[in-house]
């Protein structure tokens, strides 16, 4: 019972760290997916006196991914009743060209500003509509959300590191006796600390498996998937290979670090 309790304390600390890492990964992925979504729905409109070649516009700023010319027919249709055909044809020729630019990713306010300036440098471009007011508020909301989650993840991380330090002291007390006795009978350090490393590795494996089970369940949970579909994004909650490898690596690293610190801090009894 006591032994299970000793295992549990490290497992709980490791699971909380792995949990916070995975939650942070999911948030990062969600924000990236949301940004991509925003980028798809966000465009800049350029007004030009003359027709501009696609490659000329693209050369102005690397953010520009796609260019499409806006058809002026819908505007002309509204004037249709008051003008005769000849004037309408003349208007079509003299009307400035409108282009909609799709961007490679959702830009930050600085990038939007730079893009606007670069476009205006072209002699034919007379106006650039970047909808900066809307863009800025969405972007700031996104940043705020990301920062709140980061602070939350860091707080969990700090608390669990403190838990692990406490665990380190308990383990030091628990294993010092046995390591000292083994040392008195000539056991090399690898042998006297073998039990400690075995415990640490077992705890790392158990905590990785527990985290795997929890996130595998969450990634198939209807309610969670529904929440993501509400905001119109599709996010991988848990990648069985990539995410599990990262979490397992972190768990093994932390537990071996903990065991190594105990071994390094071990003093021979005099």
């Amino acid at each position, binding site marked *: 019972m006591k032994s299970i309790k000793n295992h549990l304390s490290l497992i709980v600390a490791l699971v909380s760290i792995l949990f916070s890492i995975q939650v942070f990964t999911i948030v990062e992925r969600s924000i990236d997916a949301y940004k991509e979504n925003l980028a798809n729905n966000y465009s800049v409109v350029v007004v030009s006196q003359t027709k501009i070649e696609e490659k000329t516009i693209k050369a102005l700023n690397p953010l520009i991914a796609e260019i499409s010319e806006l058809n002026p027919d819908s505007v002309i249709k509204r004037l249709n009743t008051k003008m005769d055909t000849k004037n309408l044809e003349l208007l079509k020729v003299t009307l400035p060209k409108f282009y909609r630019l799709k961007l490679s990713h959702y830009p930050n306010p600085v990038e939007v500003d730079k893009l606007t300036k670069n476009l205006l440098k072209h002699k034919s471009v007379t106006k650039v509509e970047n909808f900066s007011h809307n863009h800025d508020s969405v972007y700031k909301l996104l940043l705020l959300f990301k920062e709140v989650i980061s602070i939350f993840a860091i707080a969990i991380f700090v608390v669990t590191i403190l838990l692990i330090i406490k665990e380190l002291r308990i383990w030091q007390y628990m294993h010092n*006796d*046995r390591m*000292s*006795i*083994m*040392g*008195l*009978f*000539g*056991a*090399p*350090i690898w*042998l006297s600390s073998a039990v400690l490393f075995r415990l640490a590795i077992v705890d790392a494996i158990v905590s990785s498996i527990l985290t795997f089970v929890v996130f595998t369940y969450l990634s198939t949970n209807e309610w969670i998937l529904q929440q993501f579909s509400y905001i119109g994004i599709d996010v991988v909650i848990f990648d069985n290979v990539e995410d599990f490898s990262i979490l397992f690596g972190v768990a093994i690293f932390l537990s071996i670090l903990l065991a190594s610190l105990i071994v390094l801090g071990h003093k*021979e*009894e*005099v």
Partner: protein
Amino acid sequence: MDKVIVAKDLSLSYSNDETIINKANFSVDSGSFVFITGASGSGKSTLLKSLYGALKPQQGSLIVGGVEINGASKTKLNFLRRHIGIVFQDYKLVKEWTIEKNIMLPLIINGYEKNVTQNQVDSLLKHVRLKHQAGKYPLELSGGEQQRVAMARALSHNPILILADEPTGNLDDYSSGLIWNLLEGANTQLKTTVIVVTHHIPESMGIDYKHFHIEYGSIHEVN
């Protein structure tokens, strides 16, 4: 006769201010039985600690089993300790291991095969009359029984030297008798060198022994 221990101008201390053993000269022949006596705090246990390298000499030279303790690397000390059996006053048994596993410890460290280890442990458990307690943990045993386990552990790997620190200190007559018999047996039958730190030399000792007495930091042989 070969010397297992040779001390020349040996000084021991825990810090630089207080010297516990001061420039001692002595030697111990291989296969001999040695008692070290002295008043409480005279430095008996300190001397014993230096013999297994837990305390390095402050000055002078101390050679145990051919290993110069001063300046010996950890690997050399481990090598030496693998050939020594130690009986501690406070037993020093691993609490979370059964007594069977505690006795196995030196055999595991020395890399003995499993069947050899098991046979040796079974035989020792019979000798210390604890066969029926093999699966118990140290804290489930009395002080006398724990010391018998410690004794069995010290003998398990047939060491060249046994160091015992007041092995019968607080024990009943039965356990004390068993321990003295085992120490005598190891010395006479296996030719193991035995060094015992004690307050009283038992009157019933049936073998020849050497007696060192520690007083005011110096060690002298008692004839």
